[in-house]
């Protein structure tokens, strides 16, 4: 059963209080009244009303102050000001301060009932919005846990049994049969990786990585990234050529996530390159930026596709599908780069290849600013530099 709605009326005129009580008595409401602001505010805390009607002109605490205090106590309480004709402008003022509506004196029973009903409707919506927002946050936060367990667990169990089976049969399997197992293993691996990446987008609050920012060498993140895609490149007979210009890019950031971003970009370059070609990774400092560019001579991206590639779940339609992707790598990369106050851009021509450029604001590497400094000291010296 739904609780009765609670209405509080604060007015120094007893006639008004009486008539409000009488008018609202027919509805399914609890009505409380107060003769002045002090009593009214006390009732707000004890009675926990849904709507408060406040007379603007009262002895003692002014109606405005009452409004402000109610808002401070619980901003979800709907407030309506009661005011004489002469003070319509102050009613407008009150509404600017957060009052939901105003009720000009004298009012008809119908007007009061209508405003009450609308006010309750508003209160319901406000509370619902808050509940939904909280639910959405909870969902997002728990998504990682739920999805990890529900999706990854069965896949892990399948993979583990597959491992066990292959190990047990290893001496009996033919090369062909082994390759069938390899296929299964690799597809399950892909699926596990996909879930992992997907989770990263859904749940990871990439903005949070900023808390761990410290002075970071871009080149070291780049080498780590190259290391992790090297195997794939070797498989495809693709040479990764690095060119680093000194001084070599110190930025305020997080090495792990930067490496992740570079893995995505360099990995893509390898993925969309033709066998036997080259991928060029360049790190240089230009003006106040560290530029990391990755160039390939692969399949390229069509003009129609270019504007969408940094969006979620985009997978190239460039006709020439070389390898499958999750369509999230670039979106994650963009978020990581943006969390570093940087930007990412791309130039590409279909069939000829692409160049991705990541720009990160450079830290000046002077004697006061060695990489060993903690992030707070860095933030300070950074301010001094600019």
């Amino acid at each position, binding site marked *: 059963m739904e609780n009765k709605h609670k209405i509080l009326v604060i007015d120094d005129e007893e006639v008004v209080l009486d008539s409000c009580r009488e008018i609202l008595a027919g509805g399914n409401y609890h009505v409380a009244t107060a003769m002045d602001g002090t009593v009214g505010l006390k009732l707000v805390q004890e009675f926990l009303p849904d709507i408060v009607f406040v007379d603007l002109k009262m002895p003692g605490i002014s109606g405005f102050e009452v409004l402000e205090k109610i808002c401070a106590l619980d901003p979800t309480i709907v407030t309506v000001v009661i005011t004489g004709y002469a003070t319509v402008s102050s009613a407008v003022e009150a509404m600017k301060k957060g009052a939901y509506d105003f009720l000009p004196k004298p009012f008809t029973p119908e007007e009061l009932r209508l405003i009450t009903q609308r006010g309750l409707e508003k209160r319901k919506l406000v509370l619902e919005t808050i509940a939904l927002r909280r639910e959405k946050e909870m969902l997002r936060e728990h998504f990682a846990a739920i999805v990890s367990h529900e999706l990854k667990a069965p896949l892990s169990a399948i993979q583990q049994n597959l491992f*066990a089976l292959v190990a047990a049969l290893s001496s009996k399997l033919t090369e062909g049969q082994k390759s069938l197992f390899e296929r299964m293993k690799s597809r399950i691996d892909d699926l596990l990786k996909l879930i992992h990446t997907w989770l990263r987008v859904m749940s990871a609050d990439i903005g949070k990585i900023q808390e761990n920012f410290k002075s970071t060498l871009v080149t070291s993140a780049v080498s780590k990234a190259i290391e992790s895609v090297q195997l794939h490149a070797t498989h495809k007979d693709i040479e990764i050529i690095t060119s680093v210009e000194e001084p070599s890019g110190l930025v305020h950031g997080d090495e792990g996530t930067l490496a992740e971003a570079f893995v995505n970009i360099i990995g893509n370059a390898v993925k969309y390159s033709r066998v036997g070609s080259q991928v060029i990774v360049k790190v240089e400092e230009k003006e106040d930026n560290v530029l990391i560019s990755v160039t390939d001579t692969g399949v390229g991206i069509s003009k129609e596709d270019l504007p969408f590639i940094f969006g979620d779940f985009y997978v190239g339609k460039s006709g020439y599908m070389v390898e499958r992707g999750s369509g999230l790598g670039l979106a994650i990369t963009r978020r990581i780069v943006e969390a570093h106050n940087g930007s990412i851009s791309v130039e590409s021509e279909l069939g000829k290849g692409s160049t991705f450029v990541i720009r990160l604001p450079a830290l000046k590497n002077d004697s006061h600013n060695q990489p060993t400094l903690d992030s707070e000291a860095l933030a300070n010296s950074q301010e001094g530099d600019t």
Partner: protein
Amino acid sequence: MSQPKKILIIDDDPDFVEGLRSILEAANYGVDAAYNPKDGFQALQAKHYDLLLLDIMMGRGAEGIMVARKLNKDPKLREIPVLIITGIREQIAFLFPGQAVHPHFMPVDELVEKPVEPKFLLDKVSDLLHRAEARKAQAK
């Protein structure tokens, strides 16, 4: 030949357990399994085990961590080497913000991700058994 080493697996996913068991038994380990923390704890108290394989996300949350904490408080049980096997490394980091990815719960423990390649699993298991033995020898 020496007695086969006894391993207890605590994991709420019986299918996953069978995948581990087959690999371990093929390598001549004796394997028991418990499918929830409570049974697992009882098994540990009732019988001697040389190693524990522990899942983290069980039941309503990170119950594996509770098991590890409880074991660590027991002067006898805390000497058992533990291989923590979890499906979600990032989740561990998330549970312990600001800590390294591998939180050490026990004197001798190690963390690996699900699924585990057989060779990797066997390497970790024998490594942990050696480390525990070295620790025991040192204590004497």
